[in-house]
């Protein structure tokens, strides 16, 4: 199984071809192909997860050969503890997204083909160790997303899709500039080799015109901020977040699930894989700014979510708040902070996916998302109520559920950061915890409790298909809350190495 990563990554591509070649009008076949094309990678990823060597921080399942010799770009893939969990999450969420999409009627062939292409792009980003390859997959991912929002979205889908596209494209352009500069300076696209150069302090742009300086700023600082903004848009970090509510609100439910569950993680993962380790000195100098952005995202996102009346917008802003923890954990530069941030990415992937599925369930029935327009649904949809409550409490970070582990580790890590100002950050972000509880409880109250609106009297409870979509995610929320070592053990060596690297490299 030397090529397992390539198989996982490109099987959906085969599925996509099959979907395109499927006879016109046979939507059942298309759905079946999509299920298989996402299910097999999921099984492979599960196998991969458990055959992963937890004791080493080095890259595993590596494949490396020249791809475009002219540029020096290689097909260089491999995984370590930072990416393995996210690969598993990606395959799982895509596998869930397929049945969650069964209610979509419009142009199904194209829809599933794009969905599978999206999976290729996402998985490619997670396995790439070559920056050129990374960028190519990054861009591959962008296009299907644009069409998936722009064609299958809500009433203002064009606006949302273009906003999403322009935002992420801006980020990509900044990234591209930085990548070119890094390539020129280091002479390689390989991320591990760039890291080696950065470790010995050689990646300073001294070989470039200007001798490592540009308009009075260090080369590394430019690179850092270009890459950081590129990834921060994806995360999204305040103030680059405004594409998110629009994209989420307009996107169809399964796309929201993928968007919140995985695409946001790409930003965090990108920072960890392809931004901080390349310019560690600039990163260390910017920790304070990153911490501020993280805290602002946490508190601000929570407050804005509290002020929403649209169910999906509320959930979207809660993502801003939750992803703030990731940034705060990174900025803290402690092992706990990194464990917290890395697990938070996974746990937010499950809990936010559940929340969007929850919104999708009610939207499919009521065709609106106005929180004030519901009420008393617990009476007609008790199962829905139970699952929603569990999902919301997982998102709230209640102990015993997965969110608590990551949030607690992040906050503890941030509190023990070398910079004492992070103590203040933790104190402020705790406000976010309370507000998060407030808006989630308020949402539960407004949707499920109180008097039942006569309009909703005949609503059926969740169908088995809908339960099937949510159950594995909720299961993960519970299991990872009780046994967090199913995540932490896997990432431990890599996190230890990464934190050590970031603390010491380049100085």
């Amino acid at each position, binding site marked *: 199984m030397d090529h397992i990563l390539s198989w996982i990554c490109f099987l959906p591509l085969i599925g996509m071809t099959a979907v395109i070649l499927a006879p016109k009008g046979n939507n059942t076949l298309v759905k079946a192909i999509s299920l298989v094309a996402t299910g097999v990678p999921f099984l492979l990823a599960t196998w991969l997860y458990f055959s992963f060597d937890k004791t080493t921080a080095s890259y595993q399942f590596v494949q490396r050969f020249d791809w475009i010799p002219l540029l020096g770009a290689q097909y260089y893939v491999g995984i370590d503890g930072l990416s393995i969990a996210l690969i598993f999450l990606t395959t799982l969420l895509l596998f869930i997204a397929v049945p969650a999409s069964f209610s979509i009627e419009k142009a199904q062939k194209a829809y599933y083909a794009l969905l599978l292409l999206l999976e290729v792009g996402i998985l490619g980003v997670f396995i790439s160790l070559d920056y050129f390859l990374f960028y190519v997959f990054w861009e591959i991912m962008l296009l299907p997303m644009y069409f998936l929002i722009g064609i299958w979205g809500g009433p203002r889908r064009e606006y949302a899709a273009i906003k999403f596209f322009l935002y992420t494209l801006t980020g990509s352009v900044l990234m591209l500039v930085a990548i070119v500069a890094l390539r020129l300076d280091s002479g390689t696209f390989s991320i591990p080799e760039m890291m080696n150069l950065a470790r010995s302090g050689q990646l300073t742009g001294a070989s470039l015109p200007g001798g490592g300086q540009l308009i009075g700023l260090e080369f590394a600082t430019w690179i850092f901020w270009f890459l950081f903004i590129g990834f921060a848009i994806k995360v999204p970090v305040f103030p680059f977040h405004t594409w998110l509510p629009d994209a989420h609100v307009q996107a169809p439910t399964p796309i929201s699930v993928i968007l919140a569950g995985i695409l946001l993680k790409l930003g965090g993962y990108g920072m960890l894989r392809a931004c901080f380790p390349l310019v560690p000195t600039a990163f260390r100098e910017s920790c304070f700014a990153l911490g501020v952005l993280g805290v602002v995202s946490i508190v601000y996102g929570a407050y*804005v979510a509290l002020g929403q009346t649209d169910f999906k917008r509320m959930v979207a802003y809660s993502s801003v708040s939750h992803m703030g923890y990731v940034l705060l954990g990174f900025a803290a530069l402690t092992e706990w902070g990194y464990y917290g941030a890395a697990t938070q990415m996974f746990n937010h992937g499950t809990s936010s996916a559940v929340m969007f599925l929850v919104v999708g369930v009610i939207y499919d029935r009521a065709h609106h998302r106005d929180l004030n327009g519901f009420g008393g649904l617990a009476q007609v949809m008790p199962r829905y109520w139970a699952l929603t409550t569990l999902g919301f409490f997982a998102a709230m970070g209640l102990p015993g559920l997965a969110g608590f582990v990551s949030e607690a*580790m992040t906050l*503890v890590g941030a509190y023990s950061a070398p910079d004492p100002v992070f103590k203040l950050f*933790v104190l402020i972000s705790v406000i976010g915890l309370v507000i998060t509880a407030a808006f989630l409880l308020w949402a539960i109250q407004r949707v499920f409790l109180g008097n039942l609106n006569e309009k909703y009297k005949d609503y059926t409870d969740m169908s088995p298909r809908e339960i099937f979509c949510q159950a594995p995610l909720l299961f993960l929320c519970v299991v990872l809350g009780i046994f967090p070592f199913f995540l932490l053990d896997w990432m431990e060596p890599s996190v230890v190495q990464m934190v050590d690297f970031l603390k010491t490299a380049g100085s």
Partner: protein
Amino acid sequence: MKFDPSTDFGLLLAVLLIPLIGYTIQIFFGKKLPRQGDWMLTGGMGVVMLITVYLAIKAIAAGAHGDGHAVDFLHSSQDHGFAFKWLFDEAKGPGLLNVVAGILYDPLGAVMLAVVGIVCFCVHLFSIGYMQGDRRYHIFFANISLFSFAMLGLVLADNILFLFLFWEIMGLMSYLLIGHFSQDPSNPFFHRWATWASKKAFLTTRIGDCLLFIGIFIFYREFTTAWETVPAFKEALPRFQPFLFTDMWEMGRLVVAQNGGEFPAWMTAAGLCCFGGTIGKSAQFPLHIWLPDAMAGPTPVSAMIHAATMVAAGVFLLGRMYPLMSPEVLAVVTVVGATTALFAATIGMVVYDIKAVLAYSTISQLGFMVAAVGMGGLVAGMFHMVTHAFFKACLFLSAGSVIHGCHHVQDMRLMGGVRKHMPVTFVCMLVCTAAIAGVYQFSGYFSKDAILLAGWASVLDNAVFSGWNLYALISLAIAAMFTAFYMFRLIFMTFFGEYRGNLETHMYSAQIAAEGVEGPEPHAHDDHHGDEHGHDAHLPHEAPLRRNPMTISLVILAVFAVPGVAALLNGWITHLMTPLSMYGPTAGAFAAEKISEGILDHDSHLGRQAHYLAVGVSLFVATAGIVAAWFLYVRRRDLPEVITTKLGLVYTAVRRRYFVDEMIDIAFIQPTLKLTTFFRTFDEKVVDGFVLLNGSIHKGLAFFMAWIDKTIVDGLVNLVGLVSQAFGAATRLLQTGRIQQYAAFAVAGGLLLASWLILS
């Protein structure tokens, strides 16, 4: 009968697993089980009760032998390899990154565990009768089972992170249980209120939880830094785990010793934060506001919250963290506790809702416990928690019984004379009221006596004297008198006189007309229990025979309050619980440094002196309170109105609960909502507006360019056309045919370019 680690830790684990497994089965299959699974969970809880009582007896036996005190009764399962590695699967040495959870079994835990087991079993039993006919009967049972599980886990947790974990689960379960009626409009209870109350309870306690969370951070951060930097600490604690209680106590001792016997400032800050958790969970001022509203939940839940779980958790946390609390923190604890005790007692005297009286009495009694801990009466506080758990659970269940009997009326002005109709309930309630009022030899007498003793000892002892202790002593004495008064007011109003439920006019009618009925509206004729008693007889009634479980649980709980049993309890607990037995030899001695000698040793001169004063005061205040209640509510029933009129504004303020809710609304909730609106507008208008403005600028630029293109560039082209017109027929060439026009332009451009090249 010694504690045997090889088997008894297994039993303790079973205590946790039985309700958890029961919950899991119930939540999935409860509805399909016979009787909706109530027998399963109640039986499971019965087993839990038996185990906890058995283990408590073992502990008491350990306390009884030796020199009369249980020393060295502290069992940590981690010492016996009995542990759950939480964050990482493999142990990471004495590293700082591992959280290993085990069971900590000490006198405090032993006693608390037995109390929780007994009370939770009684509540389960009571619920079988009380909740019958509820649409979500099985869910209710599942939830109270998990609620019990959380409390049991909290008691047994040996590290503060797991304590916090169970603490939060309890918060969640209280949210679900208080809101139990909130989605069932067919239920006669007040669902709208329940929704609101459950959310309020969760959010208010969560503020405290966040403070506790911060406190944990501070302890973790400072302890690990100290451990890593000071070699002596490393030697003393080679396998240091920063969250483990025993290690925290030990580290606290070492840090203070290294600091020259003074508590460092950060320990004060951390201790205050942890006390914040207690303020939230144990409903201390000013976060007490959720507790009176929490009675919107079903009465068994109220009994559970007010007695053995939830509010007890806060006090229990104080017990766990006591060695780490600096004298400054303890002063704050004292003041907050004493203030809460007095403050809630005054409100308790003026409310008419029977459950509200009990709720405010709970807040007041919690204030007693907290203040006791603050003054050094650690054991007294814990003992009061135990006695209070029994009699308050009984009082609530009795109140539930009364409410049930009085057709879901909660306003005491509509009761009266219930004694004749519900004799068993009356007896139980009377016993427990005597206990809470501190009548001689009833359980409350012993614990309140111990608290007052602690107060006197700390006031008389020059070593620990502070003005705050004096303030607390006086406040507590007054609060004790008020307690006796309002509890007997409750008894007299409810059980004596004539039944007023059916009367159209009576002494309170004017007041009710002015203020409305407290508690839920009585649902006069659509009683859902109407099958059990005729509508014609609107008289109170004891629970019918098939609801026997209700009465049985009342009796079980009341037994712990009666003289004799109470004295036994007192003896056992004072022998079992000492700082040394609770925290181990070294940490215990360290904790005892903050406690007055008179509290630790009752036979010392100071102890005797304080004891006599305490007995005197408590007997006096109890008698005074009872007599006043009898005088005002039996003898001269016209007086209360006269007094309230005389008090005027003061009475109004107390009636309105000192406007705390309103003030919190103005000070916090409204600003939060405003801030929310502001942030939302900011996000939509400014942040997004900036993005859109950016877009608009570019769009405008694009239009400008297009305009230039159209007017100037295209104009030039058209100019060429005009020039061509001079050649006659060629004009039309430029004005027709789209693609061809482009081709023409291209060629013309090429020609122009060529000519420019040639001419230049």
